[in-house]
Structures are given as structure tokens and as C-alpha cells.
């Protein structure tokens, strides 16, 4: 049963990630990213991290990608025309990349074998265990991340607003 779920959502993640990378229409790319994120969230739950799975949907799929969608629509991002004739040597580079990737995979399996994880205990999956770690050992990074989010909010607001000099020059011209 677990193998079936893994096979289904892993192939869904792979398929939709290829659509993200290859599709010309940015709206379809963004929506395929949602499917990928959802599949990865299911895989998190299979790996004994249900809290992270739910957070993945809440933060990534529910907020970040919505932001992407907004920007795509606001900027009216057009369909991208892929160059028909690739750069010279693009095919060779792609082939070389695939060979290197396969070599890495062989190395991964050779060294690591095929280890089974320990069986998932109720204690490992529970929220309390994660929270205990988060708020004791990792308390300082937690607070710093809070500060980081505040800085990001301020930075994003400043970066995206209209520049104020336009109104000043307009009022200077209108005054005398």
C-alpha cells in the first residue's frame, strides 16, 4: 500500500516538475508547481513528517505560489518562445549532464546500499517531539527566522511600491 502511494505521487511529482520546467505558458508552469508541491507534501507524510506536509501546503502551495500567480498576471508574462535552433553544443552538454547524473546515482546506490529506515513510531511522528526540538535546541534560529520574515516583509513592501519622486516633481511644477 505504501509502495503504491509512493509510486503514484513520485511519478506525479516528476511529471509535473517536467511541465514546470518545459511548458511555454507561465500560468501552466505555476499551476504544475502546485501539483508538484502537493505530491512532495504527501511524500513528507509518508516519511513520518505530517506537520511538515501540512506546512508545505499551507505556506508553499497556499501562499508562495499564489504570489507567483499574482505577479504573472500583473506583469502579463507572455508565453515564452523557445529558440528553435539551440545553442551550439547544447545537445552535447545535455548528454554529458545526463551521464554525470547517472554516475552520481550509481555512486549513491553503491555506497549507501538500500537501507530501510526504522519503523515509524508514534513518538517520532507526533507533533510534540518536533516542537520539543524546535523550541529547546533550535530556539535561537527560530527567533532569528522570525526577524528575517519581518525584514522580508519590510523589504518587499519597499521594493514593490511606486517611487515617490514622481509625486514631488509634479507638486513642484503645480505650485507656482
Amino acid at each position, binding site marked *: 500500500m505504501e509502495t503504491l502511494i509512493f509510486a503514484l505521487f513520485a511519478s506525479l511529482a516528476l511529471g509535473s516538475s517536467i511541465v514546470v520546467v518545459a511548458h511555454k505558458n507561465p*500560468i501552466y508552469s505555476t*499551476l504544475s508547481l*502546485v501539483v508538484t508541491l502537493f505530491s512532495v507534501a504527501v511524500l513528507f507524510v509518508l516519511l513520518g513528517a*505530517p506537520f511538515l506536509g*501540512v506546512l508545505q501546503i499551507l505556506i508553499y*502551495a497556499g501562499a508562495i505560489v*499564489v504570489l507567483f500567480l499574482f505577479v504573472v498576471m500583473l506583469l502579463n508574462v507572455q508565453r515564452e518562445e523557445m529558440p528553435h535552433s539551440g545553442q551550439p553544443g547544447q545537445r552535447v552538454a545535455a548528454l554529458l549532464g545526463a551521464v554525470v547524473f547517472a554516475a552520481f546515482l550509481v555512486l549513491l546506490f553503491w555506497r549507501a546500499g538500500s537501507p530501510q529506515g526504522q519503523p515509524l513510531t508514534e513518538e517520532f511522528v507526533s*507533533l510534540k517531539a518536533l516542537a520539543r526540538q524546535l523550541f529547546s535546541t533550535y530556539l535561537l534560529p527560530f527567533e532569528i527566522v522570525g526577524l528575517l520574515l519581518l525584514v522580508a516583509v519590510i523589504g518587499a513592501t519597499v521594493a514593490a511600491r511606486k517611487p515617490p519622486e514622481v509625486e514631488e516633481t509634479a507638486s513642484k511644477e503645480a505650485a507656482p
Partner: protein
Amino acid sequence: MNPELVATVIKLVVIVGFLINVVPVMLWVERRGSAYIQDRPGPNRLGPLGLFQGLADAAKFMFKEDVTPAAADKPLFIMAPILALLPAFTTFAVIPFGPDLQVGGRTVPLLIANADTGVLLFLAVASLSVYALVMAGYASNNKFSLMGAIRASAQLISYELALTLSVLAAIIPASSFHLADVIQYQRDHVWSVLPQFVGFVVFVIAAFAETNRLPFDLPEAESELVAGFHTEYSAMRFATFFMAEYISMTCLSALGVTLYLGGWSLPWVEYHGWWGAILGFATLIAKISVCLAFFVWVRWTFPRFRYDQLMRLGWKVLLPLAIANLIGVSAATVAGWL
């Protein structure tokens, strides 16, 4: 046959049956209720008191011609109504609808998704409903639809913040995301609406905005943007959006009732065995019905918010209020008052 699987399937059938039947009942309540408020008879021809109006509406939706705009983005156009319906149905999975049942020596908790991360799952799935709106507006290839979709999604994500913060404040005294624990806390102490009244008000206002109901229904208002993001949808596709709106209203009411008004439990009542479960489910349905009647009442009483007033209310009033509420509830819990 795995007994847990059988129990889950039976619970699914009960809940989905309940949710599907909400729509025709709400149709009748909305029409007659609005007529009563506006001092006119309302539908009274089909059956006694017009009770078969829902059947007539269903038949109309099924037989109407389904028009798809020629330049519309077909896959997204077709998927948008389905995507609106999925989060609406799924969010009810974490709401407990009765006390634990003892069946043949094992305890069956009466909720579909017995996950530790209960409320977070609700919020996560509810936040996916934005995509249906955006897809509908974009795929219609219509400027009014796109404007309506962007406004609706901006409204949804703005009020999601206030909603999430008020939900978090409600579960802090119970120290658990699991809604059964929240109900148990309210049975041991008092319904959370009394000590956390500010949070309740924030939740109610945010719930109105999340379901696109008046006074926050500018994105789909007929006199404003034709019909907003569902302008180009007809017949069954429009009916699907309609259904999705009513079902998400029901699910948000169920969440509000569970967090603040005690869920399936009544104070000073004991719940035993099968009769207890039925009584609990009936209590939950009654409380949800009161909330839905309140939705209808507010819709036909208030004028609607303009878009900039709406955004100002969400960011400058509700969000600080929700944050202050969260801080207050946390302080009270640490001090031992809650």
C-alpha cells in the same frame, strides 16, 4: 476487510450526504429568508411553502445549455469549478461530529481525518480555494472575469491571515491542534466564545470575507463586475461554483462552531453510545444551521464594501486586532486564567 477502512467509508458517506443536502436546503432558506426580510412572498408555487424550489433549480441547471467562450483556455476552464469544489468538501474531514463511539470493543472517533495536525489541515486545504477563482478568471478570457478573479484572490489571502490568527488563538488554551481536544477543553471549562469574544468577532468577519458573502462579495457582485470571476460559466459549471460556495460556508461555520461554540457538545449533557452520537451530530447540524441563517440574514441587511474599504478593513483593522487577541490569549493562558 480492514475494520478501520469500513468505519471511515461509513463516516464519509454520512458527511458527504450531509454536505450535498445542504445546498438545496440553503437555496430555499436563502430565497424565502431574503423574501421575508424584503417583505415579499418569495417562491411559493412549487409545493407547500415553495419547498420543491431546490428540485426545480437543479433541473434547470442540468438542462441549460453549457456555453464555453471560443477563446477560453479549455483545460483550465473545465478544471476551475472542480477545483473549487474539492477544498470545500475536504475541509470537513477534520471536524468531529460526535463523541467517541464504542463499537465491538474498539473506540471509533467520529471524524474522518484523525490527524494530529487537525486545524492546520483545515487551513491548508482552505487556502487552496484561491486557485479555483484565479483559474476561472484567467481561463474565461474576459477582462471583467480577470479583474474579479484578482480582486477575489487578493481579498481571500488578506482575510486568511486574520482567520488563521483567530483560529490559533482559539486553540491555544486547549494546547492541541486536534479539534476533539478543543471540544474536550470547552466541555471541561466554558465555551470559548465567552472569554475570547474579540477572537470570535474577528473569526466571523474573516469567515464572511473568506466565503465571498456580503458584505464582502464585491468580486462576484452582479452590479459591479457583471458577475465577476464566474461571468462566463453557465449551467452545471455555474451550479458547481454555487455549490462550492455554500459548502465552504457550511465548513467554515462548522469550524467556528467547533472552536468557539462547543462543537457537537451541549453543556451539562452526557453522551453515551449510539444515541449520544446521534444527539451530538444533531446538535452540530443545529448549530451550523443557526450560523447559516445568520449568513443569510447579514447578506440581505447590509450594503457591500467597496474594494479599497475592504482591503483597509482586512489589513489595518482586523489583522492588528487578531494579533492583539493572540497575544492576550497567550498571556492569559500562561497566567493560568484560561
